[in-house]
């Protein structure tokens, strides 16, 4: 029986989990915002994938990680405009449009990738890391935990910001109201379509950012279908989170841990098939859903278009 509690194992598990979960942190946070406002963003997977591809291309061209991340966020945001136009403004079915976005982006990124990089398969340099003074000097995990690309720290700060905005600002209040009972919000003089549009655009940008992180910081390259269902997991996290932004951290960390478990186990000499690794996050989500089935609750107006004066 190998010793599981070596510092190498722990570091690989915790730090690996943290880093692997960051794309999900962003996407999950975005979906929490969108779902709170009543928009089910099934296209999240597509937005992440678009962010990953565009982010990768932009980084490759500019050799600047920040440009890449920004471009990824913009790509996700632009895609979210499709949802905004079709679903929020025109009231078309959110699930069908979401599926359409996923399919189209999967096809488009695969084709573009093959056209542009089908022969060269370029890779990016490792993203620069920033060691937080003092914290990074802590024993055992400190060094690896607190020496990360700046975007990782920003992600965690963003979770706090979103939590605060949802709870303590009028935008947050209106967002929650739009998801629960949009007619009441409309009667109170707030434009439901606008609130939902903003939420969806923020969600798209965050999903794009998560995807860009995945390609630029995580993998260092883009391969077709790189998101591999992560967007759908983010949707489940948002459903369980019910508007609580902190849950994106928990969800992302658990997801990352189940991915990093393999690496960690390999370090202590246990070989785990890659298929098990890829399944594990989904199995954990199913297990969580079965256990907490009673508690998962969607905002009462989720997925339903709001069109004023429709009769």
């Amino acid at each position, binding site marked *: 029986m190998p010793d599981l509690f070596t510092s190498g194992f722990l570091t690989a598990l915790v730090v690996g989990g943290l880093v692997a979960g960051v794309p999900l942190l962003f996407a999950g946070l975005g979906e929490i915002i969108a779902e709170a406002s009543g928009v089910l963003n099934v296209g999240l997977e597509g937005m992440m994938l678009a962010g990953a591809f565009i982010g990768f291309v932009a980084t490759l061209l500019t050799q600047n990680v920040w440009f890449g991340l920004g471009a990824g966020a913009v790509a996700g945001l632009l895609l979210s405009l499709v949802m905004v136009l079709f679903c929020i403004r025109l009231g078309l079915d959110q699930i069908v449009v979401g599926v359409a976005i*996923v399919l*189209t982006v999967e096809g488009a990124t*695969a084709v573009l990738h093959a*056209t542009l990089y089908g022969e060269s398969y370029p890779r990016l340099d490792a993203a620069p890391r920033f060691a937080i003074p003092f914290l990074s000097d802590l024993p055992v995990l400190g060094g690896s935990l607190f020496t990360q690309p700046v975007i990782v720290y920003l992600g965690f700060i963003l979770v706090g910001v979103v939590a605060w905005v949802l709870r303590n600002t009028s935008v947050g209040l209106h967002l929650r109201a739009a998801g629960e009972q949009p007619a009441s919000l409309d009667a109170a003089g707030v434009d439901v379509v606008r609130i939902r549009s903003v939420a969806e655009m923020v969600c798209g940008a965050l999903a794009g950012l998560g995807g860009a992180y995945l390609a630029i910081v995580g993998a260092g390259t883009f391969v077709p279908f790189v998101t591999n269902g992560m967007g759908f997991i983010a949707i489940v996290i948002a*459903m369980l989170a019910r508007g609580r932004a902190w849950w994106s951290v928990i969800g992302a960390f658990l997801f990352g841990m189940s991915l990093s478990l393999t690496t960690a186990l390999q370090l202590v000499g246990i070989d785990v098939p890659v298929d098990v690794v890829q*399944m594990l996050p*989904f199995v954990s989500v199913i297990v969580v859903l*079965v256990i907490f089935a009673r508690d998962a609750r*969607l905002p009462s107006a989720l997925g339903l278009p709001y069109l004023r004066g429709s009769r």
Partner: protein
Amino acid sequence: MTSPLTSPEAVVDVAPPTTRGAGLGDALVRSLGPIVLALITCGALLAIVGRDPVAFYSDILQAGLVRPSGLQDSITRMAPILLVAAGMIVAFRAGMWNLGSDGQYLLAAACVAGTAPNVLAAVPAPLGWLVLGLVGMAVGASWTLVPAWLRARYGLNEIVTTLMMSFVGTGLANLLIKGPFDGPSTVPQTAVVDPSLLLFDLPGTRIHIGVIVALIAVAAVYWVFSRTSFGMRIDVLGANARAAQHVGIRVSRLIIVTFLLSGALMGLAAAVDMLGIFGYMRADWNPAYGLKVVPLVFLARLNALAVIPFAAFFSVLSIGGEYAARRAQLPSDFLLLVIGLVLTFMVVTQYLTDKRDRGEPILPRRRAGMARA
């Protein structure tokens, strides 16, 4: 968590069997319009990435339709497409978004391919096909049980659960092929069935009888929904779940039965593919019919017979597309782009024709309707 989300029946106007929609022209616009628009858009994209769209599309036609072997391949490809579509129609008409057909299909395929060599060695081929078909159906059905139960018992949204199960099923299928079902070959794949033991071909062709099975299944689904009380109950459930409960339909039971039936059809699609064409399954192989079939069943308005021409179109596109993409040095994932755009244009066409039918202006009025002084 009750599920407030829209039912697939709300996406397209599933006219009840006794009423007829608008005329044929309208139906053509609604069904062919999105396809034409998607092909034009993709043509433009091809031109942008420096490929000749005309050559590309004529390659598709040539390889998928005109060339006899291509035509036969296309017809053969219709078998799994039709069965997956039938499985989706059953679920969608009950208001259940079974989006996890990939996992259901792959797991069934792995089990069928993994056991086929032994089964077909032990019993006469027709009996073996029957047994393996049932194995596929049972495995496909079983993979819907968790989402079905969560939906029936807790109202938990089935979109995410079927998708999650799909990813798990994909991984499990690979594990099975690399583990218990691993064949003698050096690459991870199941043992190969002796070609003489695969499904018969239609006389003088390379089209196996699985296509006939698929057509029968599709016709049966059509008949169930147009004629039987069972189909009517499923339809009522999809159209208004609360009304279904109110009128005395056992909703929970029907949800589970519908899911099982849907999964069984996915599993049958896998069995037909394994026993009709391949005779073995390689690890990491995934045709991913799932989401690609979604636009087809919506274009057919969840009508099982109407899905046949769309399945034919899709088969030609996928058989011909593989060849055309190879020639144009593009990945065959190009097909995803076409089909995603078809779905996009479908919702837009649907929206515009619905608006026109209601006599409303095509574009939403933003600042119109001000009071006249």
